[in-house]
C-alpha cells in the first residue's frame, strides 16, 4: 500500500471506524460479561444456583 497515493485518508478513516466501532462493542460486551460474573458471585457466593449446584439442578 502506498501512503502518498490519492484518497488514502478515506481508507485509513474506514479502518479506524471499524477498529473503534467493533473494538468498542467488544470492550462493552466483555465489560458486561465481567460485571454479570461479579454480580453473580456476590449474590450466589457458594454457587448454589449454578447449573450443577444444589439448587441449580432442581426441576
Amino acid at each position, binding site marked *: *500500500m*502506498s501512503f502518498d*497515493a*490519492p*484518497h*488514502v485518508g*478515506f*481508507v485509513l*478513516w*474506514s*479502518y479506524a*471506524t*471499524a477498529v473503534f*466501532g*467493533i473494538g*468498542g*462493542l*467488544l470492550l*462493552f*460486551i*466483555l465489560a*458486561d*460479561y465481567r460485571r*454479570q*460474573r461479579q*454480580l*453473580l458471585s456476590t*449474590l*450466589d457466593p457458594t454457587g*448454589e*444456583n*449454578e*447449573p*450443577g449446584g444444589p*439448587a*441449580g*439442578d*432442581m*426441576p
Partner: protein
Amino acid sequence: MWKLANPGVFMAYSGRLLPWLWAATGAVLAIGLYQAFFVAPTDYQQGETVRIMFIHVPAAWFSMFCYTVMATSAIGTLVWRHPLADVSVKAAIPIGAVFTAVTLITGSLWGKPMWGTWWVWDARLTSVLVLFLMYLGLMALQNAFDDPGRAARVTAITVLVGFINIPIIKFSVDWWYTLHQPASVFRFDGPTIYPTILIPLLIMAAGFMLLFFALHITAMRAEILRRRIRKITLLKARGSTGPGRRTATFTTEPAE
C-alpha cells in the same frame, strides 16, 4: 442439538470453546489485514480505495447474517419458546447494529472519492439504513416492557416481520437502478473479482464470521448470567431463600 441448547450445557461448552474461538478470530483477521494492506494489488480504476472493500463488504454481509440468525432464533422463541432463543436474539441486536453502522460509514467513506458523494437515496443504501434503524428500534423495544416474556414475544414477531428487508437489501441492486454496484461475489455465474483481490476479501469475511460468533457467544453468556441474577434477586426479594430451602432453578426468560 437440543441437548446443547440447554442454558447450563451451553455455558459449559461455550466456556471451553471461547478461548479457541477468540484466538482463531485474531489469527484470521491478522492474516486478512496483512493480505488486504500488503498483498492485494491496487485497483486500476479505484486506486488504494479498493482496500475499503475488505472491511465494508464483510461488515455488510455479517450485518445481514446477524439479522438472519436473529430471525431463526425468533422462530425458536415463538414456536418452541426455547429459553436460549430469546437470549440469542437479544445478544445479537447490538452486534448487528454496530456491523451495520460500520457498513454505512465505510460505504460513505468509499462513496465520496468514487461517486463524488457521501450519500444517495438509492435502494441499496436506503435499505441498509432501514436495517440500521430496525436494529435501533429492536434495542428500544427489548427494554420497553416490564414483562420479559412479553418483550421476547413482541421482539420475535418484529424481527420476523423485519426479515423482509434482508432479501430487499440483497436484490435491491438487481431490482432497481442503483448507484451501488451489483453483486460481484455471490453470483450464479461466479465471482467477477480477480483472485488476488477475492482471496483477501474471503479471508476477511472468514475473520468477520469468527468475530461475529465470538461476540455473539460472549454476549449470550452475559445475558444468561443477567437472567440468572434477576431470578435470584426476585426469589430473594420474595423471601423464598433460606437455609435448607429451595432457592432458584437455572431458568431463563421467557419461561416465567
